[in-house]
């Protein structure tokens, strides 16, 4: 198995998300695209911390674990933050989508034509 495989899969996932954002006309699908791309980035962030045979970075009173054998804990903290930010963005966009549906009666972005340019 190629060691770079997970990274390539992340990239593919990211591209799927961006593709959905750029080409879909349904608002919900666009939001899903953003979410997919966001999770590709989060996945990538977690993979950066990976260490073969690494342990969780928690000190225990019963068992001694050398710090060298722990995975890098920093990306884990970062990914939590980034997930929370993603949650806020997604919730906001869904609320907007519901309001837009109330105004236009459709989720089709091409039929929302108040703004041009």
């Amino acid at each position, binding site marked *: 198995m190629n060691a770079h495989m997970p990274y390539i899969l992340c990239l593919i996932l990211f591209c799927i998300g961006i593709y959905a954002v750029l080409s879909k006309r349904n608002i919900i699908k666009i939001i899903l695209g953003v979410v997919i791309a966001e999770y590709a980035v989060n996945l990538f962030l977690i993979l950066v911390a990976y260490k073969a045979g690494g342990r*969780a970075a*928690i*000190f225990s009173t019963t068992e001694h674990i050398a710090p060298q054998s722990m995975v890098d804990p920093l990306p884990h903290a970062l990914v*939590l933050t980034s997930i929370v930010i993603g949650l806020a963005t997604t919730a906001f966009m869904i*609320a907007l989508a*519901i*309001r837009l549906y*109330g105004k236009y*009666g459709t989720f089709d972005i091409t039929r929302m034509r108040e703004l041009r340019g």
Partner: protein
Amino acid sequence: MSKEHEHGMSLIVKTVTRLTVGLIFLYGIYIILHGHLTPGGGFAGGVIIALSFINLDLAFGGKVSAGIFSKESTGVVEALGALMFLALALIGLQYGGFFDNFLHPDGEPGGLVSAGIIPLENIAISLKVGAGLFGIFLTLIVLQKFESESKQ
């Protein structure tokens, strides 16, 4: 059919929810209080607590949690949680810096009362996250009603 059955999901779901929702709530509190010792913490625990309320609403159809926790009060609790977190950070200024862990002694490593202000911060975060998440859920429900009314 009982009157209870008019709203929400089937009897099976309701019964299971009634049995488990308290446990979910307690589990959330456990996660928060042990946040400095085990994986989890204020954020995860807050989400679990919010989920227990959301679970009630989903199973019983909307109005149940409103009696316990209205949309107004989610806003208040959320703001309180944020202010508590910020206050803990600002009190640190007295002792040497922003977010300084000013509670000395820190306690025994591994004990429940340890790690200085970190458990307190976990509680503040859980208030903020739990109320915030439940508030988002309630807001989206309200928007949905608003939307179905405007369609009629």
